[in-house]
């Protein structure tokens, strides 16, 4: 091999090695930090990871926010109008956090409730984050399918006005 080719080979190998390291690092970091968003219905159906962090999306249920008297601990319920998920969070809630408004909570499951580490809320302009709207729509579709299924099973079909 002439020296020029040899050098080119070495450079190529180095580049490939560097690329391999970079890609595996990236994949690893992505895996560690990917947060999926689930609605309470999906969590209820066991789709959410039991131990890994994920995001819970839905609407803060009306009259569900309870402040602890001595600390910043707050309990509330996130709902997609089909299933409810109790959430515990310690800290300051965002300005736009309101009952009846959509919210995305990052955290993990602890037994049958969700421990939030970060709460995102907004109501302006978009009214509901797309992801939350999606999740709720899915839950709705699932709920409707279930409802019609039950009606069929009972043999009575009082179809809503149509």
């Amino acid at each position, binding site marked *: 091999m002439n020296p020029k080719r040899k050098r080119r080979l070495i450079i190529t190998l180095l580049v490939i090695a560097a690329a391999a390291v970079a890609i595996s690092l990236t994949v690893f970091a992505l895996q*560690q930090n*990917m947060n999926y*968003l689930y609605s309470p219905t999906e969590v209820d159906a066991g789709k959410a990871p039991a131990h890994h962090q994920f995001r819970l999306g839905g609407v803060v249920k009306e009259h569900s926010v309870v402040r602890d008297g001595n600390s*910043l601990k707050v309990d509330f319920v996130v709902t997609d109008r089909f299933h409810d998920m109790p959430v515990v969070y310690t800290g300051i809630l965002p*300005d736009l956090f309101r009952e009846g*408004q*959509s919210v995305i909570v990052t955290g993990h499951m602890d037994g049958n409730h969700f421990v939030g580490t970060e709460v995102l809320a907004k109501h302006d302009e978009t*009214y509901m984050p797309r992801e939350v709207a*999606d999740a709720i729509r899915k839950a709705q579709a699932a709920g409707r399918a279930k409802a019609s299924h039950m009606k069929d099973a009972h043999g009575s079909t009082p179809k809503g*006005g149509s």
Partner: protein
Amino acid sequence: MLPELGQIALILALLMSILQGVLPLVGAWRKSPALMAVGRPAAVGQFLFVALAFGILAYAFLTFNFSVEYVANNSNLALPWYYRFAAVWGAHEGSMLLWMLILNVWTLSLAIFSPRLPEDFGARVLGVLGLLSVGFLLFILLTSNPFGRLLPAPADGADLNPVLQDPGMTFHPPVLYMGYVGFSVAFAFSIAALLGGGVDKQWVRWARPWTNLAWGFLTLGIVAGSWWAYAELGWGGWWFWDPVENASFMPWLVGTALIHSQAITEKRGTLPAWTVLLSIFAFSLSLLGTFLVRSGVLTSVHSFASDPRRGVFILIYLGIVIGSSLLLYALRAPKVAGGKPFAPLSRETLLLIVNLLLTTSAAMVLLGTLFPLIGDAFGWGRISVGPPYFGTLFILLMAPAIVLMPLGPFARWGRAGGRLLVKVFVQAAIVAVLLGGILFAAEYSGVPPWRAILGGLASIYVIYGVVAYAIRRWREAPAGNRYPAEMLGMLIAHLGVGIFLAGVLLTTALSVEHDVRLAPGQTETIGAFAFRFKGIKHTEGPNWKADQGTVEVLENGKPLTVLHPQKRTYERGQVQTESDIDAGPLRDLYVAMGEPLDNGAWALRIYVKPFIRWLWGGGVLMMLGGFVAASDRRFRLKRNASGSAATTATLDPASVRGMNRILPLLGFALLVGLFGFGIWWNTLHDQREVPSPLIGKPAPAYNLPLLDDPSTTVSKHEMLGQPYLINVFASWCFACGEEHPVLMQEAQQLGIPLVGYDYKDQPSDAKAWLDKHGNPYSMVVTDQSGDTAINFGIYGAPETFLIDANGVIRYKHIGPLTPNVIKTVLEPKIAKLKRGER
């Protein structure tokens, strides 16, 4: 009348831009001086017309011209004049106009300050910039006209987003755009060089000051944005790896790579193809940033108004600009010739490594930012990528660059002395460890966190390199030529990086953040600082009321200062946190109000943030470095300048091989596909027009009690025979409070019954709420359990249904009704129903 003039000015500007975009390019091709000469006057004319349009919009804001829809949507009578002026770029349409104006400022400066460019080359540069203008002006005129009318004009307007009501707002967007758009100049130079083919590589020398200036502005813009997020948004953080932030950071990374590769190409004639490619990338990422922010493809905490239709237009624009320039690159790249050879150990190699690290970082940020989109595309579910992904990878990628940084100036072009580099490295490392060790031992009992150690050492290491090189130049270079502006700029910018490093890592490692509950009189202690909460009082501004806290700060028991954080409520009901900060060179004391708790207690954020000012200080130094370097005399255009090194370079067709040339184009095609998908997906899943399965179908049967008289019920059957509206509301619903005044004003003019649908609410609460705010409804039914709501597909309040005389749902609006929605959507539909059409 004036707003229409504004629109006409934009149309005239479009004509000018077409002249500027087409004629000089044709002239350069046909070698016609007359055609080439059109460029400059056309550029001046275009600037004047765009500036006129901008001025007219600003005037409309200052004179409360609410008949202009954009003005009505973003300002009101109570807004102070300086925020009304800043409101010009407070939302989409105006910020695009600002983008355009700034593109014109750059073009104009180029036309004025570069009169000595070779005629054909200058014509091509102006032509390319003109073509960019054509696309952007078309975009503004077709999808984002800021001069649209709202007639009859409302008496008062809405409000500027309170987050934007901050001095930072007047400053941050224009500066950021100066940077973003400034890369268009480097882009235009590259494209002109590719088009010209045979042009010598002097073009890089001409392009360099412009690139440095743009980079300086972008740096300042990002720094200002970071400071604004810290001071204004009340989160106490300075960087969140949010899509919108990433959108500005990616061009910065590539821009940083570009200014370094331009140095190589200009001085040595090496890597011209790479420099061209980076110029294209830097501007492409600027456009991409605009696309990401403006199209709503990604959800962001910043989330400005977005519109998928605009997304399609920007995508097409992006496709044409980037696609055609990469195609041109694929066809012409080898014609931009090779350069001087360099040894494996040389300044070229070091710069090349840093270049690769920077571009890889940009790619990594791009991947993380777009990952939610990729997840959608492949059906992996709804994914977001957490900040640690960016943080970890970024530190890993930048660490080698930091290690190389002090060595760069010491490495010679062509072939560097290995021993010298090792010596510098060892010296810098020893100084860093010794000095760092002494400082930490003096200031810190125990072992500091690893990030703090890393930050301190890296900072000293980098600064030592800068100082050592400055001393060496002082000793060795002849007086008067010790620090040419270009080198001085480099040294200042590198010094800035050193200071920035200390700021970032020390503040990350040493910040103490307490979110606490404090009753009046209670104290929270962080280190030597005691924060005593003394309670709140009410205060007022021009268009807001606030709860203002008083927090007394003691240092080692002695009074230090009193902080007054605020929780503001703006006229339109938006809540905004205003932090109060005691700034200092070594630490910031930061207090922000959380929320009121019972018994006068408040949730407070109390932070002590050491060295946080350093990161912005470092950023400002970097910017300064960019400006100083740009002022170098060598860049002034004299055709006889000592450019022999660059001009004599030989043609090296092997420098860019076939596949390598097409690769960028392929990658870009992939991206376009992904974005196209993103827009399609968004349109499909647009939450504002939920494709309710019920539209066009009969409304579900209902039989609901009246709020005033629960013993009487109203059913769907009783309502047949006339069109009517059902408005879902609740006393607990925040957005309903925003919607309510609109209903109060408009309900009478609708001409059809407006049925209130009290959703999951206590009747007593609802009654009290209606008593307080007024009752716009013809009747109010209640659905306490929410069972009927499920049949209607209601998932929140407010929602509004339009039902025709046959009981069929014709339209559904989710979220608060605005005067605009009522005027443009609801009223036409009602009119149709009344005429008996569908």
